[in-house]
């Protein structure tokens, strides 16, 4: 009892110090987990709104997928092929590598066709995603604030181009807590393709910024040790490792009694998590329980670190209660050969993406899983040789699942696919909408840092109600 009081007080102190709300007080016992008490970590808030999405799987097409060869048909651009891009579009606009170059229209390199009962127009290089056209909602009027990969990723993940702010997954871990018993609530998987430049993805894309570090995302590697240093040293079996961890925990607790240090409680929970991950993470990659049919649907042989394998991993993580799962596929920076490279990159993701949506649907999980598919920006309607340059003023994404209007499209770019023109959706709007589906009023998930209340949507963001079911 006495221990509990100390713990209560201590947790209170830690939580208030970290700017957390009183809601967290409700479930204090989790601050000191033990093997018999694994129920994740409570969040700082109670949901403000009805919870439609319990989790998010974000299929992140890193490098900047061309919207013009995927989700946004532009017949007028085809008609203008080779002609100078009207300066009314480009004058005074930021341009990346095409600065100073002759700007000419470049026709869409792949045909579009209508899919499903909804008749959604999708490029024919995505036949599998076409087959789920009636499940997805295409948004064709995104715009972003950054024209280079690194800041554009940072903006898409943290709502600002300035590094050091928390990623969305960290915000959710902080706000809603972690329900996964043996895994962090925010997991990141990466894969590389064979067509675009493999642009680096900095660790800061899943960093917790100024939020407590336990909300950081963890990178699960495709091959080798799935998480660095995950495997026991040679000569140490699981029981021996447990003994050492137990002794560390007991000694840490004794020391906490002497020095009363809130960081020790965090340290203890991180050791628990680390130990559990030693079992849970390798088990994630054990696809032996998956049927051959499932593997075939995803188009994979096993856990080989490919995008397809990561999609299956995403489903398995979702089943285990992980709230925010982000899959980066680094293959979309098509400065040249956009025709061939789009075909190639599309083939790398098309089947598995559709398989994931269908799989979740079959398991009844699509109803409360939000799928997001998109890039940090789009690509120019202008040619860069036979490729396209980075483009921030108009691009597309699609969403599916929990609370999203299926078989629907929303917003539009202008006739050449340059500017988002109708029903513009900013990155902050996207974030506000995603948070809304997760039961969060984006204005009310805040954290005080350097005397300012920060939030994911910075100082803007409107929920796009039109795309909600």
């Amino acid at each position, binding site marked *: 009892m006495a221990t509990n009081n100390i713990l209560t007080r201590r947790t209170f102190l830690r939580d208030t110090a970290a700017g957390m709300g009183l809601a967290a007080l409700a479930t204090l016992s989790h601050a000191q987990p033990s093997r018999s008490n694994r129920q994740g970590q409570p969040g700082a808030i109670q949901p403000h709104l009805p919870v439609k999405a319990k989790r998010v799987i974000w299929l992140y097409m890193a490098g900047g997928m061309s919207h013009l060869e995927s989700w946004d048909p532009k017949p007028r651009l085809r008609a203008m092929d080779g002609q100078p891009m009207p300066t009314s579009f480009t004058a005074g606009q930021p341009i990346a590598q095409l600065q100073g170059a002759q700007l000419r229209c470049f026709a869409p390199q792949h045909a579009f066709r209508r899919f499903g009962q909804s008749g959604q127009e999708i490029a024919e290089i995505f036949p599998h995603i076409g087959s789920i056209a009636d499940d997805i909602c295409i948004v064709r009027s995104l715009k972003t604030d950054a024209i280079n990969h690194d800041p554009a990723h940072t903006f898409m993940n943290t709502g600002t181009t300035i590094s050091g702010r928390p990623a969305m997954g960290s915000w959710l871990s902080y706000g809603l807590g972690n329900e996964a018993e043996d895994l962090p609530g925010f997991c990141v998987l990466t894969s590389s393709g064979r067509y675009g430049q493999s642009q680096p993805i900095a660790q800061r894309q899943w960093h917790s910024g100024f939020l407590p570090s336990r909300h950081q995302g963890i990178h699960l590697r495709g091959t080798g040790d799935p998480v660095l*240093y995950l495997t026991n*040293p040679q000569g140490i079996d699981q029981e021996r490792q447990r003994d050492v961890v137990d002794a560390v925990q007991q000694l840490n607790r004794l020391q906490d009694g002497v020095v009363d240090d809130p960081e020790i409680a965090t340290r203890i929970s991180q050791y628990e998590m*680390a130990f559990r991950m030693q079992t849970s993470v390798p088990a994630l990659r054990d696809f032996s329980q998956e049927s051959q049919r499932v593997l075939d649907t995803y188009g994979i042989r096993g856990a080989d670190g490919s995008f397809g394998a990561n999609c299956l991993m995403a489903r398995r993580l979702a089943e285990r209660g992980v709230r925010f799962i982000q899959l980066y596929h680094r293959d979309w920076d098509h400065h040249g050969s956009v025709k061939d490279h789009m075909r190639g990159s599309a083939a790398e993701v098309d089947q598995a993406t559709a398989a994931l949506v269908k799989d979740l649907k079959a398991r009844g999980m699509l109803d409360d899983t939000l799928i997001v598919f998109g890039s940090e920006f789009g690509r120019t309607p202008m040619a860069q040789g036979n490729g396209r340059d980075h483009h921030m003023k108009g691009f597309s994404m699609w969403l599916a699942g929990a609370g999203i209007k299926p078989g629907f499209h929303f917003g539009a770019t202008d006739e050449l696919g340059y500017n988002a023109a109708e029903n513009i959706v900013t990155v902050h709007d996207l974030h506000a909408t995603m948070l809304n589906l997760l039961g969060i009023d984006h204005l009310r998930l805040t954290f005080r840092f350097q*005397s300012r209340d920060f939030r994911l949507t910075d100082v*803007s963001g409107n929920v796009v109600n039109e795309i909600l079911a």
Partner: protein
Amino acid sequence: MRQASQRWIGLACCFLLPYTLAAQEPRKVEFNRDIRPILSNNCFVCHGPDNNLRKAKLRLDDEKDAHAKVLVAGKPMESELFARLITTEADKKMPPAKAMKQITKQEIELIKTWIEQGAKYEGHWSLIAPKKHELPAVKNAGWVKNDIDRFVLARLEKEGLQPAPEADPRTLIRRLSFDLIGLPPTPEEVDEFVMEYAGAKRGAAYEKVVNRLLKSKHFGERMAVHWLDIVRYADTAGYHSDNNRDVWLYRDWVIDAFNQNKPFADFARDQIAGDLLPNATNDQKIASGHNRLLQTTEEGGSQAKEYTAKYAADRVRNFSTAWLGMTLGCTECHDHKYDPFTTKEFYKLAAFFADIQEVAVGRQGQTPIMTSTQQAQVKKLDDDITQIQKEIAALPKEKVKDAQQKLAAVQKQKAAVQKAVPTTLISTSGPPRIMRLLKRGNWLDDSGELVMPDVPAVLPTMKIEKDKKRPTRVDLANWLVAPENPLTARIFVNRLWMLSFGSGIVKTADDFGALGAWPTHPELLDWLTLDFQASGGDTKRAIKQIVMSAAYRQSSKGTPELRQRDPYNQLLARQGRYRIDAEFVRDNALAISGLLVAKVGGPSVKPYQPAGYWRYMNFPVREWANDKGESQYRRGLYTHWQRTFLQPSLLAFDASTREECTVERPRSNTPQQALVLLNDPTYVEASRVFAEKIIKTTGKTPDRIQTAFRLALQRQASIDEVQIVNRLYDKHRKHYEANPKDAASLLSVGYAQAAKDIQPEELAAWTSVARTILNLHETITRN
């Protein structure tokens, strides 16, 4: 006191406001110290610099606007600002209820006095030169050990708080060792100190430790860990292929500069302009490598003009944060939104570095520089050669052949020495590149005006010789360290404070601008700054002063009430408590085990790294090869610093990738850190060697456990602790007896050979104990 703490529960999320809780006595109200925090916390959200959120078109951060609309100097009752604070009408009251802000009576009283005194504003605090302040009066004068304490204590007394009791001697010496050399004290050092400290001359005993540590060759290493983050020192180019460069001579120069306690002015001048100084020494040339540490590219197809512009901007970004504590990065494209810096000034600063010769796209040229040893060797060999040549001339023909062979051998030796001469990146001055203002940062736009080197107008002007056409980096460095400059010395002493308490007097040690934090103890910061300048930039003296203070010697424990009231320790009623930096986590484990190779300087090394970690690196594909022999056991700061793929066990503990300036690292606490300490071969091997040391020191199990605690934690184990460890030992001893293969397998982790004279099951069981101890929170915590 009780009332105050209750209110603090209500405001638990808010920062403490300087001087607002203090009992009021009539005194001159200062805007920056007294009023600005109140306005900033309560009013600026709606009536501040942000155009989007502004209400009623009113700016209270703008003196003119506020005086035109809501302030009448000298007349609070006629000032609407004041009327709105005291009104009882709910719809007029400011801040409005929905803002959830509460201004206290004392704060309202302060504002009243301020208006009475004329409602004067002040410029941004950090741009105003530090002032000499009278040492504040304190009640509890007995606590004071030096002048620093007067400032700290005066503030505590105003807040009605007591300083924490002094930490116990073992904690003190451990804290000093980590803070000053980044290594733990040895048990012998602890014993000696504890004994002397218990005696009559405790003050002298403490000072003796401080002096010893400041003289240690490891002091420079500890300081370098911090400085190398700031100047973003790394062993690779950074962009794209991230290929190697050799610039470790610069790293060693930094270590040496701190060890030699180089006056700050020289420290700055050598780095920024060492190559331009008259009769520049090799050391000064090496120091000028400072200007070459930025990221560069070798990527084919990159455009030279673009990268020249990138490098210019990178240098300004780094220079302004490292040396001015200001973030000028945004002024590359637009005038600063909060601080008084313009885009033109950004490019003027860039122009100072336009003379530096470099390759825009491609491998940078390395400059060979002989070490003093090599110089001596070559000189000796040259002398030998001359000598032999003389001899040959005098020899009879039949003996010439032998002598010539001897000559060839010496010449070969000389060639070998010359071949081993290290190379580095240095600044080499040439005709300066044209520097123009790039509109919106667009490097293709040549329409911007040409600019010459100059410093920002808001700072003191730069003095240069009359007939000099163009200011140089020497002028810039001299300006930087001139006493009029309000920033450089201030940010430097603030960082020294940060290294001694865990955070600075200005919490945002990297931003002294309008968006940065305000100093918690502005007068103390001024005092430290002036003192540092008056001492001729004596870094060791400044550090010594800080660590000799009673404030520094406080216990870090604090009370629950205190932590609740002051969660960020802004009032300094206790010491800081935090996890040691990544490099020191490693150094500590190696030092405890005895594996640490204490050699200072030299080429970077490659400790264990998981295979395949470099898989995503390209042009060319590379494989990390773990170093063998003594290079495996060097301190963390000598690790090969690969910017795009930093050695992952350092990265797990928040080491900086050094792509940009890092003044303060985050301090995270993650499962990944647990995995590193449990499974990284570095720590498994160190545990085994530590176990050998434990076994060889004493015989009986309880004694050995005490030895283990003493070696790692410099303290006795409690009965409970001994029991926990003993249980683990017994169980694992039995297991390894029954499973000798497991024991052999565990003992073969790492390149160091396991002791042959210890039973494997015994050594394996003690390795478990050692692993446990190296994993303790306490082991990696400085308190």
